[in-house]
């Protein structure tokens, strides 16, 4: 399901690029349609990819970002996201490798991630007005909190880590000089945050963003 989602988004993204170069002959924008400044808020869905601590997809998340164009195809900016993961685990016996220690319980596991990154995006020239594909990367830090609840007990960990966040997506232009923009993207979130109680050294998830932004051409 996860690989299918990535494949569909990749095809969508590359398809948009092909459409842009083939079908948009009558429209030849002289410059990028991106505004000088751009602030966007997105709904961020997340898919855990390491499956070591939990596997359930998250629909609970958002992303706020700001971008400023350095040239007609390149922007820098900053972004912050918030993601919440939650999964119930039925009763199971967990053994140590030697099988000398065992724990039997059911549990609820939660993870919250807050990646805060400096970003850079490159926008491909598009010959149609509606879409402008881009590649981007974010580097920064991520706060993470994990909770394990079982019976009346709770294990909690929180820490900061380094995060790298490559993404591909497209800007949706609602008009040639409309300040309103749509954003659709898929990104991969890799961080060094640990969950020591589960022997996990890093946290990874895919994120899918659908958002709206407003910019200024001034």
């Amino acid at each position, binding site marked *: 399901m996860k690989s299918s989602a990535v494949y569909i988004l990749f095809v969508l993204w590359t398809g948009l690029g092909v459409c842009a170069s083939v079908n948009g002959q009558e429209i030849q924008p002289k410059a990028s349609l991106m505004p000088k400044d751009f*602030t966007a808020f997105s709904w961020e869905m997340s898919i855990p990819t390491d499956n070591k601590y939990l596997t359930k997809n998250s629909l*609970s998340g*958002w992303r*706020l970002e*700001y971008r*400023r164009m350095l040239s007609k195809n390149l922007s820098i900016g*900053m972004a*912050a996201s*918030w993601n*919440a993961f*939650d999964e*119930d685990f039925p*009763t199971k*016996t967990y*053994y140590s490798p*030697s*099988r*000398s*220690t*065992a*724990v*039997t*319980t*059911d*549990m*609820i596991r*939660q993870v*919250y991630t*807050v990646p*805060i990154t400096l970003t850079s995006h490159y926008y491909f020239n598009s010959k149609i007005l509606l879409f402008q594909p881009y590649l981007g990367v974010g580097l920064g830090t991520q706060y993470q*909190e994990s*909770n394990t*609840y*079982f*019976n*009346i*007990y709770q294990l909690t960990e929180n820490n900061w880590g380094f995060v790298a966040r490559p993404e591909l997506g497209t800007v949706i232009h609602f008009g040639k000089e409309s300040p309103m923009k749509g954003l659709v993207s898929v990104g991969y979130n890799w961080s060094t945050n640990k969950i020591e109680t589960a022997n996990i050294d890093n946290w990874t998830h895919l994120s899918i963003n659908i958002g709206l932004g407003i910019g200024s051409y001034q």
Partner: protein
Amino acid sequence: MKRLLLPFGLLLMVSQEGCLKSPNFDQLSTDFVVITKTDSSRIFSSYSTYYISDTIAYHSDVATDTIVHNSSSQQLVNAVKQNMSALGYTFVPKGSKPDLGINMGVLKNTTVSVVYGGWWDYWYGWWDPWYWGWYYPYYYPWAYAYSITSGSVIVTMADLKNASRDQNLRVVWLGLMGGAVGDNLDANVQRGVTAINQAFTQSPLLKKQ
């Protein structure tokens, strides 16, 4: 750019404080959490007999609570005996030099944190060092951390056969079962019995070869 820092910061603070999802605790089972630790260096086929008292240690918020000997404790003791019998061990009287000695205790409404061996030091008087007929300090080979906020059953199995050679009562198996308990005594005891059964089930090293 600067004007964005405030909304960024506020949004993050609101999310951390207000958007953390409270878990659905109704989903969680009320069965005790069962933790067991077996001394894998011991060859359990070398043990044949064991002894466990009908009286179990009891600590609660009531200072005078020290032991319990009634039908409830008998159910817990019987659960241990049935599991030991199923594993191939034979119950013998204390005076018959059993190979293994089993102590059992119950905690209620007490919070305890333990992070290193020798945790019974917290419970002076819990275990009588002379109980097995001669004085040896308990020796516990592992460090462990846990907390108890409502109720727990603790079962320890000590090596009596080699106590003289080891000069201590080495704990070769520990069962720690804990969780929320209610006002219904029968239900609480049943939780204990179920947990004891699970503790032996998840300890394959105890089985006599």
